[in-house]
């Protein structure tokens, strides 16, 4: 790894310089230079290693119960029924429903509150703008884990434990910062003249935001939406603390409860996990590029 001349892939490379296997202009004869070959092999091996734990989860999810304790890499036969049985024989169906509500609800809430704020922050210079941004930034630094006891006490006193609304509110709040930032960055990159033209035609600022800016900022919106959804979908500690009744806990907590059982039914556990994991990995692949630019804009310039 860490090989020489780290040029390729970064930016505009106009002339081919000797010494790196780069680019579309590569001549056929040079395609399989040893260096490229080693690079490719290492990269593919690493990719396989990164996927391996998840593949093992899928394999386990397909293991028949009587092969669970076998020291084999692959089971003799595949038991697809695990995927059906786990929902029927446990309360995970309720948990999945909670997770869907919480992830969906908090995503909508995040979008509703962060979009206007991001728009205004990107377009206007106002008193307290700096403080507003600092507040959002600081929120991002305080993770729910650090505030668990405080969160528990607050929602206990409000008599809102075991409520889906509590999880929607908390998940939304802890994901706001990312949404505000990436949306601010996107909206800031859209020329203001477009809106002004619409406003001259009599549209209100809010109307201009919805009709003109929003469609142009769509990649940012999609990224914020998917990112929030995934992060609420995967959330664990707040669900564990703020929901004490099994049927009001999210899927992550429900799956974790399997471990507390006397004998762990690993095949069922992973049949549920696969359902929890695979959709978000696919979703994440869509926003992979944007997430990084959203995360690092401002700091990595």
């Amino acid at each position, binding site marked *: 790894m*860490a090989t*020489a*001349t*780290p*040029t390729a*892939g*970064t930016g505009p490379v106009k002339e081919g310089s000797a010494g790196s296997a*780069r680019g579309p202009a590569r001549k056929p004869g040079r395609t399989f230079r040893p260096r490229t070959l080693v*690079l490719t092999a290492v*990269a*593919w091996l690493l990719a*396989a290693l*990164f*996927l391996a734990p998840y593949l093992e989860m899928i394999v386990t999810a397909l293991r028949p119960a009587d092969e*669970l304790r076998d*020291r084999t890499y692959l089971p003799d036969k595949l038991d697809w029924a695990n995927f059906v049985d786990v929902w029927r024989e446990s309360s995970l169906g309720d948990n999945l429903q909670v997770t869907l509500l919480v992830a969906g609800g908090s995503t909508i809430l995040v979008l509703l*509150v962060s979009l206007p*704020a991001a*728009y*205004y922050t*990107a377009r*206007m*210079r106002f008193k307290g703008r700096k403080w*507003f*941004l600092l*507040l959002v*930034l600081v929120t991002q630094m*305080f*993770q729910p884990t650090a*505030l*668990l*006891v*405080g969160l528990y*006490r607050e929602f206990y006193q409000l008599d809102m434990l075991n409520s889906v609304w509590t999880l929607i509110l908390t998940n939304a709040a802890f994901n*706001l910062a990312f949404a505000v*930032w990436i949306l*601010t960055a996107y909206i*800031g*990159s859209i020329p*203001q*003249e477009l809106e002004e033209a619409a406003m001259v035609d009599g549209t209100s600022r809010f109307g201009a935001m919805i009709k003109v800016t929003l469609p142009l900022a769509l990649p940012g919106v999609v990224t914020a939406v998917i990112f929030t959804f*995934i992060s609420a979908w995967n959330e*664990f500690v707040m669900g564990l603390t703020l929901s004490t009744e099994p049927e009001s806990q999210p899927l*992550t907590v429900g*799956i*974790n409860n399997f471990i507390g059982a006397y004998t762990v039914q*690993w095949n069922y556990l*992973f049949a549920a*996990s696969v359902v929890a*994991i695979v959709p*978000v*990995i696919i979703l994440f*692949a869509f926003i*992979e590029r944007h997430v*990084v630019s*959203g*995360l*690092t804009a401002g700091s*990595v*310039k």
Partner: protein
Amino acid sequence: MSLKAPPSPASSRGRGGQPARPAPRSRGGLARLGPLPWIAPVVLLILAVVVWPVIELIRTSFLNISIAGIVRGSAGTDKYRKLFEESDFGHVILWTVLWTVVVVGVTMLVSLGLAQLFNQRFPGRRITRWALIAPWAASVLMTAIGFKWMLNQTAGVLNTLMLDLGIIDKSEDWLGSASTAWPWMMFVAVFVSLPFTTYTLLAGLQTIPGEVYEAARIDGAGPWQTYRGITLPLLRPAFLVGVVINLINVFNSFPIIWAMTQGGPGSDTATTTVFMYKLKETDLAESAAMSVVNFAMVVVLVLIFLKVSRWNEED
């Protein structure tokens, strides 16, 4: 997931180069209220779900409170004294520091290599990069549970693999004792931190203009010289962001340890967050005191972060 990140404190110039303008005063309705209708919902949500718990947390740490949640008057600083006198407290703090430093250190080093590798051109770069994000997208808890299963003494695939390769003679209970559980949990923590960190460094690498390398090559610099003299210094901002975000995430990392050992045996594999959660079962106020200590450490991290990100230069 993880990434508590410092995206652009809204560059006030917009990327298109237009300066942000002052709010027009002449407009009626919404405009007259200024920023409030636009930013108030965000502020309210933060006040209700982030600021309130902070206050509640500090208040609770000075209370006598029953397990059922009934407040029985003030406890002064008793809970803090009780916490500091816990026999496990010292080593929990020590291990938290070790855990954070080791995991973040290893993550940064490995990510430097990964970023360099995945920045090259090779067949299937796009697909391999997708594979890399799996641990980032998947829930950290699920990944940790997956490793717990793979380390299972009876049928865990990692035990099987190590037996077959002759690395071990008999199947081990890796998570059963602190001395083997710690390295494995650190491994998992590094594993889930790598994608975000690598991507951050990749983003950093992409900001380095190709001409710089061209110039270095013309000057006859060797690969290692180029890397040390050009890549590393120019990668510094991305590297710092990676360090600080990982510090905060790893320090707060709860699901990995909770899923794999629950901090046990005893509190031998607990960090402060796990210890705090265990205390919550017996004494809510003492748990709150632990959180406050935790929180103070996070504040230090945040201050470092603010210094690094230099947020106040933006406005």
